[in-house]
């Protein structure tokens, strides 16, 4: 039975399944890249069968070290990070990390690179593996000095990137958008036009924190990405704007801390959602969110969780 964590009966009889970008999910709750490691780390806290799936830490072709410390900082209702895509590399991921996961777990790979070719090659590599349900392009890392944010911020570069990766894989292809843009809807349109199967939004918001005693930026990288509850209203706005603009499905990400928050994203048009920063503070929360969404659906008279998508009542006036 899905969403059984906590054994809620209030969610019984509700069909929790959703489809996102052509991927069948047992429920709409994914966990976000960079906040769920390679999945196994959560085994002590969470039944992986209680969530829809997860997006693994962004991968590069070669293993990659990140930025020097300090890499994180706390801010009001949020945190900054400047990890810079530290990862084991695609090979170790496919050979060591993936096989350690339960068969039934839906795994999405997140691809990162410094040029479209590297992204495409990575996508091709992970596509060969039968366990990869889909590929999320991280076009939006807000603190890698070269690459990363430029793709997510420039519609022409983004189009080029999506085109290259699309050509390299037949798997469900999702583009994760950067919030650090003037018109998020334009970026989503580019993805749709280039054949992406879905978009995830948002990645962290570019931000900064200062240590007043030392008169230095807190992060060694100076700039970092703001995540957590603080950014939720921004993410929600962007999901709503993108939902008005494109027909491809949306995965809502940003500051989700409970089922209510998740529902807000679905009502605004998201087909699935990702839990990010919350995984750090409450590594068992994602499963409860799945159950909570179903309970909400029932309370509101829906039979299928999937029907929550876009069910915001038309604004008055």
């Amino acid at each position: 039975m899905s969403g059984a964590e906590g054994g809620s009966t209030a969610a019984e009889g509700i069909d929790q399944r959703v489809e996102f970008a052509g991927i069948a999910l047992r429920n709409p709750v994914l966990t976000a890249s960079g906040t769920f490691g390679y999945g196994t780390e959560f085994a002590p806290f969470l039944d992986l069968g209680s969530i829809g799936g997860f997006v693994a830490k962004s991968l590069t072709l070669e293993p990659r070290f990140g930025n020097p410390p300090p890499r994180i900082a706390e801010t009001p209702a949020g945190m900054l990070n400047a990890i810079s895509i530290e990862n084991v590399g695609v090979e170790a991921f496919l050979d060591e990390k993936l096989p350690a996961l339960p068969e039934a777990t839906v795994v999405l790979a997140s691809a990162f690179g410094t040029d479209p070719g590297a992204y495409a090659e990575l996508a091709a590599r992970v596509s060969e593996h039968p366990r990869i349900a889909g590929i999320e392009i991280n076009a939006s890392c807000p603190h890698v000095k070269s690459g990363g944010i430029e793709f997510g911020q420039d519609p022409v570069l983004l189009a080029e990137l999506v085109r290259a990766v699309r050509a390299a894989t037949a798997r469900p292809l999702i583009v994760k958008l950067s919030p650090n843009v003037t018109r998020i809807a334009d970026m989503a349109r580019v993805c749709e036009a280039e054949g992406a199967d879905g978009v995830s939004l948002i990645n962290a918001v570019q931000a900064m924190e200062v240590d007043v005693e030392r008169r230095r930026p807190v992060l060694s990288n100076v700039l970092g990405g703001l995540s957590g509850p603080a950014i939720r209203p921004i993410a929600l706005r962007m999901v709503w704007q993108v939902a008005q603009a494109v027909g491809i499905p949306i995965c809502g990400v940003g500051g989700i801390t409970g089922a209510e928050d998740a529902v807000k994203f679905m009502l605004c048009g998201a087909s699935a959602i990702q839990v990010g920063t919350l995984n750090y503070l409450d590594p068992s929360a994602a499963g409860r969110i799945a159950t909570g969404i179903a309970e909400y659906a029932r309370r509101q008279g829906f039979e299928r969780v999937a029907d929550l998508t876009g069910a915001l009542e038309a604004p008055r006036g």
Partner: protein
Amino acid sequence: MKCAIESDAQPVRAHARVLANRQEGNCRRLSLGVPSWPGSNPGQFVMIGAGVESAVVRRDPLLPRPMAVYRDPGPLPGAGGGEIELLYRVVGRGTALMAEALPGQSIPLVGPLGRGFPIEAHAGPALLVGGGSGIASLYELARALRNAGRDVVVLLGARTRADLIGRGDFEELDVELVCTTEDGSDGILGRVTEPLAERLADRGAETTLFAVGPTAMMRACADLAEARSVSCLVSLENPMACGFGVCLGCAVPRSGGGFSLVCRSGPVFDAREIDWEGLP
């Protein structure tokens, strides 16, 4: 030598109950009842919520704080969980909120986390050096080493008497205890590295140094150990978001290049593994 052992116990996420929370010198002792606590190894830590749970979840401050398990008598029989103690200093918002926790309230907790200290039964003498809140990481280590039959000396260094936290507990352990204060208000006047150098000179190459405290202190210990060719284990502190290896926020530079995660590969490291220059 393998630098650290992995805990055999799987960590839990629990709602810990505050049993007591008292000022002791310049520090506070927090006793917690932790449901399904599996027991910890010396040197492991927990991630503890910044502030007690209430009907209202408040997202500021957002992140939990890492704290060494100061005392851990082990899990209670049955499914009763365990009682653990933390010893902490109020330095910022999170610890100030912890200080306001009242008995009966609950705090979210994840642990035990990290790799603890290696306890090798038939090894040589052990010199344990603690400074500041780092002292909290040494009590269970001292107890385990003593129980393993090792020759144990504990050296606690502090600025002043009120910073010699947990001192009474160490006295009861029946190991040799040396205290130093920089203002001479208790124990030997001066820095802990001075008596340490003497003891090191007394003991052989089989000696292991365990140092936990301010970075400068640990580095000084590492240098002394290096000079004597004895091994030195340190326990590092670093801001953490998760504590179990997924945020990658707690990285420290390795002497060979690259980074290690304090929460997963540490917090205990062989001092030679660390690129001390690269620490913030």
